[in-house]
Structure formats: C-alpha cells, structure tokens
C-alpha cells in the first residue's frame, strides 16, 4: 500500500513535470503548424524572454556591459524595480517586436524556400538570440521571482494525508504551472477555432496559395504566430526560470521538447500536452521501476528512446496528421 501511494505521488510529480515540457513543446507546434517550419530557436526564445523579464523587473540597463566597455562608464541599473505584472506585459511587448524583426529580417527573404533552409535559419537565429541575450542582459545566473508560490504545498500534503494516510509532496510551482498551462491551451484552442484571425492562421497552415487567394496576408499571420510563440516562450521561461533560475542552460530544455513532439505529433496542440504528460510520467516511473536494475540516471535518456520507438511504429505521433503521398 505504502509503495502504491508512493508510485501515485511519482505519477503526480511526473504529470507536473510533463506540463513543463508541454509548455515548451507548445511553442514548437504553433510555428510548425502555421508555417511548416521546425523552429529550433524556441528554447532560446524562452531563455530570451526570461532574461528580458528579469532585466526589466530589476531595472537593469540593457547592453550595460557593452556601453561600459565602449565608454568607460559604470552603468548597471536604472535604480528602480518594475512590478511583476507590468514587467510581464512589457516583456510580451518585446516578444512581439522580436517577432516583427524576425519576419522582416529573416522569414520574408526565405518565402518559398525548402523547409530545411528555414530550419537552418532558425538554428542561426537561436545562436544569434543566445548571444544577443548575453550582450543585452549579461551572462550571470539570475533568479526570477514574479510572485508565483514555491515550495512544497502544505495543503496538498495535508489533504492527501487525510485522504490516504500518506502525504504527497507536490511543489506549489508545479500546481501553478499546470493551471497556467491549462488556461494557455484553452485560450489557444479558442483563438484558433473561434476567431477570424485563428481561422486565417489555420488556413495559412493548410495551404499558402489558397490562403493568398482569399486575401490573407502571410506576413501578418507569420508575425502573429511568432508573437504567440514568443508569448508561449515567455510563459515557459517564467515557469522554468522560477524553477531553476534564469541561465543559459535554459535554452537546452528545448531538447526535452523534441521527444514530446515526436510522441504527440508536430501538428497537434493537444498532442503537445499529452506527449509532455506521457514523457513526464514515463521517465519518473521508468527511473523508479527499471532504474535501480540498470544503474539509474535513466531520466536523461528515457524520453529519447521512447521517441525513437514511436518513430519506428507511429512516425506521425499520437495526434499528428498522417501524410499519405499518392503515387
């Protein structure tokens, strides 16, 4: 009984971790759906968003190091702090500007190119943004606090203890991440299904030529989609940044999103969520049951092996569209 409850706790924790993976995977799906581009820079977008948010919150002067090095000044901070909500809104604004710049400077010039070319462009973008974020806000590890509750939830522990006699350890931040992710997905689905911009977005995702012929501007849709992806990256950046600090390894969480996408399918928003949850739970359970037999540390590779198995048996993922080419 005790062990069963422990497994249940593991599953809970796995689900919460899965939500965090799903948050990153969502950004990929959005851009892939709308433009057929696998956006390698999604993880860096999250990092950049988190850096910008911390910077704005702390009143950091952008490019301070650069300015100091060039003019021999000693600038660091404006000397004010910005309230969390305002800082988040400002950062969202920065992400929209970034989307505009990406469309104008990169995507516009690559219209009609092969997907691999666009993919390479996003790799370039990822490295550029990483360096740009570094120059703009500095490379030191920062703590992010936007007022989200953290630490073990006493309510959850007391409640589960009362119910089962065994108190679950659940991080309050994880609970919040789950709530935020649910709201985000609901909003995204409502947007794409019930608004005219959403309908236009689905149209562009389906067929560029046809979309043009009914008067939809591809440029506008791309800017919109990248802005939304930037916003999703901001949410992911806030969650991950709060959890493990804002540092450059944050951009690597994008790699964890890859197996999530392979499981869920590159084109499905619900798929990103389900894929994230499966991987979150799967790696926890695998580590618990199989880990001890093979020396542990399975969490680093389990997701990728699972994705590989999926690639063999169901390459389109759980919810992806099966593409059948007529011969």
């Amino acid at each position: 009984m005790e062990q069963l409850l422990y497994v249940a706790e593991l599953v809970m924790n796995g689900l919460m971790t899965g939500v965090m993976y799903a948050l990153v995977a969502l950004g990929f799906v959005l851009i892939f759906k709308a433009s057929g581009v696998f956006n390698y820079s999604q993880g860096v977008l999250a990092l950049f968003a988190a850096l910008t948010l911390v910077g704005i919150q702390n009143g950091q002067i952008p490019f301070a190091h650069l300015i100091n090095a060039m003019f021999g000044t000693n600038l660091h901070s404006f000397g004010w702090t910005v309230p969390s909500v305002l800082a988040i809104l400002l950062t969202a604004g920065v992400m929209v500007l970034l989307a505009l710049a990406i469309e104008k400077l990169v995507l516009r010039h690559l219209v009609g190119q092969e997907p691999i070319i666009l993919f390479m462009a996003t790799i370039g973008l990822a490295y550029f943004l990483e360096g740009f974020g570094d120059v703009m806000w500095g490379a030191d590890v920062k703590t992010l606090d936007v007022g989200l509750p953290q630490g073990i939830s006493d309510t959850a522990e007391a409640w589960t203890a009362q119910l089962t006699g065994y108190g679950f350890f659940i991080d309050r931040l994880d609970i919040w991440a789950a709530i935020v992710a649910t709201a985000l997905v609901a909003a995204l689905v409502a947007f794409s299904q019930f608004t005219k911009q959403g309908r236009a977005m689905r149209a562009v995702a389906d067929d560029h030529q046809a979309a043009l012929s009914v008067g939809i501007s591809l440029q506008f849709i791309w800017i919109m989609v990248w802005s939304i992806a930037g916003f999703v990256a901001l949410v992911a950046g806030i969650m991950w940044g709060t959890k493990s600090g804002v540092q450059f390894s944050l951009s690597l969480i994008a790699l964890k999103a890859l197996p999530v996408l392979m499981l869920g399918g590159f084109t499905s928003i619900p798929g990103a969520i389900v894929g994230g949850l499966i991987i979150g739970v799967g790696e926890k359970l695998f580590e618990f049951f199989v880990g001890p037999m093979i020396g542990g540390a399975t969490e680093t590779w389990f997701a990728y092996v699972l994705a590989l198995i999926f690639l063999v048996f169901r390459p389109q993922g759980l919810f992806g569209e099966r593409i059948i080419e007529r011969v």
Partner: protein
Amino acid sequence: MTIMENPAGYITADGRKIGGTLMDLRNITLRFGGVTAIKDISFDIREGEIRAIIGPNGAGKSSMLNVISGFYVPQEGEVWFRGQRRGQMRPYQVARLGIARTFQNIALFDGMSVLDNIMTGRLTMMKSNLLQQAVWRGAAEREETAHREKVEKIIDFLEIQNIRKTPVGRLPYGLKKRVELARALAAEPNLLLLDEPMAGMNVEEKEDMSRFILDVNDEFGTTIALIEHDMGVVMDLSDRVVVMDYGRKIGDGTPDEVRNNQAVIDAYLGVAHD
C-alpha cells in the same frame, strides 16, 4: 466586332448586359529567366461577360491568369482594373480588390470542413476585432451569423448542402472543384478567375460545372475569366475568347470569329511554325 467595340457595352443574344471595360491588360510580357511565358499580350475583360482564354498546352494561359491575380508580376506592361492602373501588388492585396480565383490543381484547406473552407472566402470582409471576438461577443456573433447566411446561400446555389460538414480532404475531385468555386464566390468577387474549372471531370460533372458558371454569371452578374481545354465547353459558355499560342495572342473575338480564324485553326491542328 463592331458591336463589341462599343465602349458603353452591348446586349448579348441571350439578353445579358455586358458593360464597359472592367480589366484591361496592356502589352503584358512575362519572363522566367530566359523563357518568355507571355509576349506582349493585350486584351480586356468587360463587366458582366464570360471571357475565355484558350490555347494548346504551354501557351501561357495559366501564367496570364496568375498575372491577373497577382501571383506573377510581369516584367513589362500595365494592368488596369476599374479604370485605374494597378501598381505592383501581392496576391492577397489583389484578392482584397475583389478578384477571386480557383486553381488548376485545386488549392483548398484540406483539414477544414467544407463550410469552414467557404467561410475563409469572407475573412477579409469581417470587421470585428480580436477584442470584440474575445470579450464582447455580441457584435462579432452578429457578424458571423450574417456571413454564415451568405455562405449558406452559396452552398444551396452550388448544391453541396449534404457535404457541408465534411472535411474537404475526403471529397472526390469533382466536388472539391465545386467547393473551390464556392469559396471564390463567397468573396462576392467583381472578377472571378477560373483556371481549368472542368479539367479531369467526366461529361456529367462538366455539364454541372458549366451550368453553375452560367448561373453565377447570370444571377450575380459576376464577370468571369476562365481557362479551359474543352473547346466545346468554351464555345458554349463564353462571350469572347482570347487564343494564346507560345506566349502570343493569336486570336480574340466571339467564339464564331475565333473558330474561323486561320491562325487558331493552325495552332490547334499543329501547323509548323516558321
């Protein structure tokens, strides 16, 4: 010919009113690298008429339609629409001028239902903004309903009521063509461009499509420019015909005139070019 050169328009034999010039193409030349797809072609499309562009394979017909709809930008020549010279425009801007089109190889949104596909035709007419759609649903909903009504009329008109909710990807070819026409009609275009609307259809489907094209022209007064291979169909449908061969215009006039034009006969029978 005299009757047709009247700038104010004329009445056809079956009593339809043809107005003045809606679109005027002047000395259009289009090149792809070293290949000249269209060489110095001029013709006009009059309000209310059905104008056909015919010619053998590779004559440049689709290129011509793509120039009109803004998908290709000609190197030389001018495009005049409703008495104004059209500057260089992107295809979506041309669409917003009220020029709708269909494609030779069908470009529909396969993942969406028939209804949603046709609704996209009205996207640019919807005025309510995101905030209204998200928060204050009243105006947005009224607008959606109004557009929905128009779309339902078109669905009735083209007799596709029973497939309204079907995802387009599952439809047979002939019906897809009809849905594409419906989407173009949903935009209430001033000028409707049809690129081989009957290609790959059987006789019965062709008859249906011909009837729809005539009805659209008759009931909505929509000006139509179409490309078609089937000579019989073209002669029955159109008021005037442009004939292209190797990127050049070799004939222009009523179906009867074109039928008796020696250059046209040569092009279709394959007389050696000098």
